[in-house]
């Protein structure tokens, strides 16, 4: 099941007829019935909104915007959550410790331990975008691209090498946004070359051959001393990567933990935006843009052909699609977005290394978060990635985390309690601190066994449709 692109056991299982199967566009009806229902339900509220409009003739427009806002309610909520998250963390972790006599209660430390820190949230963005691009080809077209790390790496290396002036025709000092697009285009072309060979195969063989290509590129980059003086460590980027509009300084923001822009007392509101926060928002915007671009493609006639190929390639061919070129195009687009993720990763880190980009375990991370989030759902991998990074944050002691929290809050007597020569502190240090990969493996196994549709896929099954379509109707029910 883990590597099967089919999301449901085939045959006539007795799934609920309304069930969308967790598939983004399974229901093809042009108008969504749920929306129509909710429209009736909210007729009264709408009318009030309309009368509040200054000019009555604007009613049509108001209606349209209300409808639009309702269609995108789920998006607004998710984007809102991620946009407000840094503030939320700042407030919650800032709650002062309270002395209640016999002990102190420190909710701030608790939140610090359990809410992912900003560095993890930024990692979530790269990984989320990379996993979305992986899902784009694997979840929608049904071809598992196990060599996806190659495209991530290409994006990363192109921006770093371009910044260092190592790419022949690209002048040194070309804006990061342009080299990012260059990297994405290179990845697109490489994907076409790899695809031309690989799409002769299907299933496991396709996965294996793409993995093979990626490993060849990995070894090549690791040993090619043109890319870096120490190719095994990879090149470092000179200068900072700036996200924004190229050549417009006021609309470009440097990213990076140290090199990033920071702003003090923004708009006189007394809010400071650190370099990390600038990076978070700048990268987040790019990820958001890429998400909407991919979603657009998925919901287009082209996207429907991708789904048709996943569902039944033989039949797709028989109804008149030259499936080879559709697969090639989907693969190329997927590589394009993977490279954007890689470029931002390198831009934020200020360097790229073969092991953090081209290596096959990078693809494995994308696979894991895609399964956890829901394969065949575009936003799912982002939630999977959030889950992944949260777990990593909790189990590492880098920024907050469970181990330091336990070490500090548990009474000394309990920590040093000794059973057969092993203290409780030893246990914490051994099984909690920095053990994220172990637990992730376990979580992954549990997900494959018990939540095969992933987080978002299961929510969709529950709601009986995509969240964006069903959520407004559900909320209306509670409003009455």
């Amino acid at each position, binding site marked *: 099941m883990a590597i099967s692109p089919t999301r449901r056991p085939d045959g006539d299982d007795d799934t609920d007829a309304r069930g969308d199967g967790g598939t983004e566009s399974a229901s093809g009806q042009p108008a969504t019935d749920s929306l129509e229902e909710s429209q009736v339900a909210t007729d009264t509220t709408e009318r009030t909104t309309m009368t509040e409009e200054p000019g009555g003739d604007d009613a049509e427009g108001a209606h349209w915007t209300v409808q639009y806002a309702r269609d995108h309610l789920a998006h607004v909520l998710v984007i809102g959550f991620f946009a407000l998250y840094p503030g939320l963390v700042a407030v919650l972790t800032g709650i002062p410790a309270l002395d209640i006599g016999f002990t102190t209660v420190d909710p701030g430390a608790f939140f610090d331990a359990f809410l992912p820190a900003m560095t993890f949230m930024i990692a979530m963005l790269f990984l989320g975008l990379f996993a979305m691009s992986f899902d784009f080809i694997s979840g929608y077209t049904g071809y598992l691209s196990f060599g996806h790390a190659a495209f991530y790496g290409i994006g990363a290396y192109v921006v770093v090498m371009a910044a260092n002036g190592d790419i022949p025709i690209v002048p040194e000092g070309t804006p990061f946004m342009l080299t990012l697009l260059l990297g994405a285009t290179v990845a697109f072309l490489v994907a076409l070359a790899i695809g031309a060979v690989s799409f002769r195969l299907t299933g496991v063989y396709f996965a294996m051959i793409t993995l093979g290509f990626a490993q060849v590129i990995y070894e090549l980059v690791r040993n090619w001393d043109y890319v870096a003086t120490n190719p095994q460590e990879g090149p470092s980027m000179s200068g900072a990567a700036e996200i924004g509009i190229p050549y417009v300084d006021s609309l470009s923001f440097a990213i990076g933990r140290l090199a990033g822009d920071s702003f003090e007392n923004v708009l006189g509101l007394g809010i400071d935006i650190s370099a990390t926060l600038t990076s978070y928002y700048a990268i987040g915007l790019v990820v958001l843009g890429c998400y909407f671009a991919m979603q657009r493609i998925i919901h287009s006639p*082209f996207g*429907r052909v991708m789904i048709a190929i996943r569902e039944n390639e033989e039949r797709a061919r*028989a*109804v008149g699609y030259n499936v080879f070129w559709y697969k090639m195009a989907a693969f190329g687009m997927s590589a394009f977005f993977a490279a954007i993720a890689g470029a931002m990763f390198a831009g934020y880190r200020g360097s790229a290394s073969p092991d953090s980009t081209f290596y096959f375990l990078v693809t494995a991370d994308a696979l894991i978060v895609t399964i956890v989030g829901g394969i065949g759902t575009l936003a799912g991998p982002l939630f999977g990635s959030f889950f992944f990074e949260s777990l990593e944050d909790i189990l590492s002691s880098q920024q907050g985390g469970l181990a330091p929290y336990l070490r500090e809050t548990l009474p000394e007597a309990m920590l040093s309690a000794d059973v057969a020569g092993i203290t409780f502190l030893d246990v914490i240090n051994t099984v909690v601190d920095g053990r994220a990969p172990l637990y992730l493996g376990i979580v992954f196994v549990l997900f494959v066994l018990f939540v095969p549709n992933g987080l978002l896929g299961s929510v969709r099954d529950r709601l009986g449709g995509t969240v964006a379509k069903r959520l407004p109707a559900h909320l209306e029910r509670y409003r009455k």
Partner: protein
Amino acid sequence: MVLWTQDLTKEFDGITAVDGVDFSLEAGELCSVIGPNGAGKTTFFNLLTGVLEPTRGQIEFMPTTHRRACLERALEESSELADEHGSVDDLEAALDGDTLPNEAVAEWLEQLDITDASPHETALQGLHRSYQITNVFPTVSVLENVRVAVQAHRGNDAWRFWRNVNAFDDHYTEAEAILERVGLASYADRLAQNLSHGEKRNLEIGIALAGEPDVLLLDEPTAGVSSEDVDQVTDIIEDVAGDYAVMLIEHNMDVVMDISDRIAVLNRGELIEQGEPAQIRQSEAVQQAYLGGYDGEGALGGGEATDGGEDKGGADHTSEVAG
């Protein structure tokens, strides 16, 4: 005529599945292809649609749109024809009404050679098929199953990846009309995998219809359908046969005898007989193929095999291949 095959042969490692078949299909005709299991019927379809490449022989095709293009050229190049028949429509009517012999335009009517065409090419040219084993898009809605097939025939629509699919109203309208025709309109929003077997068989035909076919190849549309539902499938076939040339593989002899204009009988890859239903019913060669088999003295001696011919044929076939 819309479809020809000449000496069409397919060999698989020593087994000749289709053996030198010369066959032609008239426009608007409903021709059934029958024969014992393993006679090569489905292989024949696979050759026609380009799924398999023939070992030998040729397949030619004359789709309506191509024919019109040919006639248009005839009108352009021959002033004689142009004087007599002002438009392509006139010319077509004259040909179909037998007021003008086919020979008059023969030099412009060039058939398409589809011998080496791939499945999507034959489909785009108007040769569509349904499958013996249900072959739909399982986890998308019934409507989407048909819509995506409609979309394949709308030029470059499928490559418009920046427009929302809902903007293409005509795809939906046509898909809904097809669902209406195959009796699935009320199931449009259901997932294809949740349909009953009989409904899936109808969807099979619906997907094949979506491509505006010139020739429709139906591979056992009633396979596994309960006897009550067979009539409904038959109605659909008869309905679509009014619009397209249909080739039908079928084991249900009642259906075959009832609705066919012509029947072609394959046995061990060879076309052993073709003709009107009554003629086939009388044919000794056909009875021999169905009831006797080749090493089948014993089977004949057994005597009771009559309507159960298909099962018998199946049993015979296995022994044939083994031998």
